[in-house]
């Protein structure tokens, strides 16, 4: 080498210790919000601090969070899927129709997951093979899937699900821990590991930050995105199984408006809606925050419409606060 590179410099691996970084993170802030809401709730209602009541509260978010984990990866990669609630409707309708034809629980599971996977593939082909923007494609398929479900269902409802099918939405694994809550925990660990510990997860971040450079670095961008849409479809199918099992019926309004609640949960969890950053632990905490707020307000007999207002304010507030804070700090200086 020439003399310009004479002095060897030592560059440390990390700028600050991981612990310090964790304390300053979005997740830490969100956790404080969760604890505050928990405390406020336990003072506001005497029924709140009860293991069974709290266990019931988790049903407010477990199904949405299953989709939320897959959606988080999709949004980190710079895409979005707004058809998830419509996939639930279509999958639930297909299961309902199958019950009328005499299908048992194993067939219902296969149909629920299969429809989810099929819908995910449909989205994936339009976005990754034809190169269309995912927001447009999935707004389209949102109408398409929901519309198909409505045609089949009309204004009636499917019921008569087999008794052992109820286990998924109403069963308990141990004490107050429901099947759904255990599924939620397993999926949180699984998706967390996928995003944070694997090559696949690294590729998702790379694509979300700079798709062209990721492609130039040998990342198979289209394949990764295809898989992400498949996962989101599959998780929607799983959510359809859990929700249908819990309700015991399929109605035309099933999971109506859930796509935005799922996106809200993901964004509240600190995932950048423009892609490139976000974590699964953030989404997990966000799920609890939303569940606690909904449940707390429910105990206080606040109507559902007012709850919507609260969730909206919470989202805007939690996102705007840090920015306002730093701006006030900058002005003082």
């Amino acid at each position, binding site marked *: 080498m020439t003399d310009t590179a004479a002095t060897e410099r030592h560059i440390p691996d990390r700028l600050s210790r991981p612990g310090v970084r964790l304390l300053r993170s979005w997740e830490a802030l969100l956790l404080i919000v969760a604890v505050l809401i928990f405390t406020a709730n336990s003072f506001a209602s005497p029924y709140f601090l009860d293991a069974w009541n709290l266990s019931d509260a988790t049903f407010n978010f477990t199904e949405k969070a299953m989709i939320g984990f897959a959606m988080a990866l999709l949004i980190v990669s710079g895409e979005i899927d707004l058809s998830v609630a419509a996939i639930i409707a279509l999958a639930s309708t297909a299961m309902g129709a199958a019950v009328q034809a005499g299908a048992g629980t194993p067939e219902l599971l296969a149909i629920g997951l299969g429809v989810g996977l099929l819908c995910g593939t449909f989205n994936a082909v339009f976005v990754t093979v034809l190169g269309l923007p995912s927001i447009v494609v999935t707004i389209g398929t949102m109408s398409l899937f929901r519309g198909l479900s409505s045609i089949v269902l009309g204004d009636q409802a499917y019921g008569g699900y087999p008794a052992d099918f109820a286990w998924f939405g109403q069963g308990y694994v141990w004490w107050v821990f429901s099947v759904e809550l255990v599924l939620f925990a397993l999926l949180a660990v699984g998706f967390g590991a996928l995003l944070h510990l694997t090559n696949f997860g*690294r590729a998702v971040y790379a694509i979300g930050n700079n798709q062209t450079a990721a492609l130039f*670095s040998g990342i198979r961008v289209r394949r990764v995105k295809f898989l992400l849409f498949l996962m989101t479809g599959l998780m929607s199918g799983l959510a359809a199984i859990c929700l249908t099992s819990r309700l015991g019926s399929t109605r035309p309004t099933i999971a109506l408006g859930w796509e935005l609640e799922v996106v809200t949960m993901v964004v509240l969890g600190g995932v950048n809606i423009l892609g490139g950053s976000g974590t699964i632990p953030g989404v997990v905490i966000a799920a609890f925050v939303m569940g606690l707020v909904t449940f707390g307000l429910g105990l206080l007999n606040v109507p559902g419409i007012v709850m919507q207002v609260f969730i909206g304010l919470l989202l805007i507030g939690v996102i705007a606060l840090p920015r306002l804070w730093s701006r006030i700090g900058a002005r003082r200086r």
Partner: protein
Amino acid sequence: MTAQQAPLADAAMPQPLLALEDVTKTFPGVVALDGVRLELHAGEVTALVGENGAGKSTLVKVLTGIYQPDGGRILLDGRPVAFRTAHHAAAAGITAIHQETVLFDDLTVAENIFIGHAPRTRFGLIDIGAMQARARELLDGIGARIDPAARLRDLGIASKHLVAIARALSIDARVVIMDEPTAALSHKEIAELYELVEQLKAQGKAILFISHKFDEVFRISDRFTVFRDGQFIAEGRTADVTEDDLVRLMVGRAVDQIFPKRPAAIGDPILTVAGYSHPTEFEDIGFSLRRGEILGFYGLVGAGRSEVMQALFGITRPAKGAVRIDGKVRVIRSPAEAIAQGIVYVPEDRGSQGAIIGLPIFQNVTLPSLARTSRHGFLRLAREFALTREYTGRLDLRAAALDQDVGTLSGGNQQKVVIAKWLATRPKVIILDEPTKGIDIGSKAAVHAFMSELAGQGLSVIMVSSEIPEVLGMSDRVIVMREGRIVAELEGEELTPETLVRHAAGISEAAG
């Protein structure tokens, strides 16, 4: 070295139009500017020289109101001013033509030029006719034949640069900052830019000219200022110094060899391309690259060199032709396949195609090598840090930590990260597209020395470059392209600046 020169003989030095005194700007962990001074005089060109990381870009941002200095004063006509926003600076008559032009692809040329200060009609609407007429005047004034109604997306990179210059001139500026203005321009356009600078001088504007090319600095500037590591080092009149003096001031010591190409043992052909054609970009490209060879690709901007390289790397697919690697025919359909075959491509456009801003340094470096650092698809961070350290160390990367966002590094250091990323894949063939464009002389020397070292180890290098000294200094053999075709293959004695330019421009032997 007499850096602090006496004023001009014919007149006492007038008050500078714009002066910086003791300006300091710090970022977390870095002092970007450490009490620097700078004077710009009406009707004069001041060249600001310094290595990457010397603080030039930060200075431009301070002058244009994007950054607020932490200390020191800015004097305009001798009066202290503060540019709290970019708008303040523009209103004070300071305009900058940036290194990486910031324009809007989906707007027309005229809209790009006048965005923010478009001529209005009586009703407050944009006067499109007047705007286009004014745009045409400005473009004609700089000798650019560009349709003001054209969409920017449809222009080449050189034309975009001219639009950026026109935009800077559309503000009635007193101070014009040119940050690497010739980086993307061809010879003819550079000559036109020089004329433009002369015109601006004659109009009494003060010009700050930032460039890494010494021939430009000596060709165009009246005065110079040298920064090193965020500190003011020297200033004076350009006529009083030599190239060697400036290099010494910049790096703090003499660089005797900028192009340290060592003779390497050249082996058998490793990559052979025959009859390679693309419907629109290039035709009938054929060449072979041997082990340990540095093969230069020279040509004007738009000659199709990058397009050939991107096809070899699997980004675009050619219509016909054959590629042999180690004698075997290979079809490369994606960058992933190219990397697997041992071919890597370091793109010209560092910002959008090379570095992944938002990811830390080590994740950038290991991205194409994850298969090697991971186990069963799971990341192993310790291995990633080790691999990153190995390759960035060899390139003399300057950074605070390996988990620092690559976007916080200077241009030269970003380029080192990108090159380290590719070397870590242990390629057989490395294609470098304008590897030293827009980086400082110190980083340049490091990149050149490293290229030479790689060739010595048996790696084959294709270097696409538009800088003649670099092409001549580094290449064993040079292929010249013009309008999508190979027009010459030069070696040894034939390699002179004249022959290169003649072939690239299509000037016949007799005419010269």
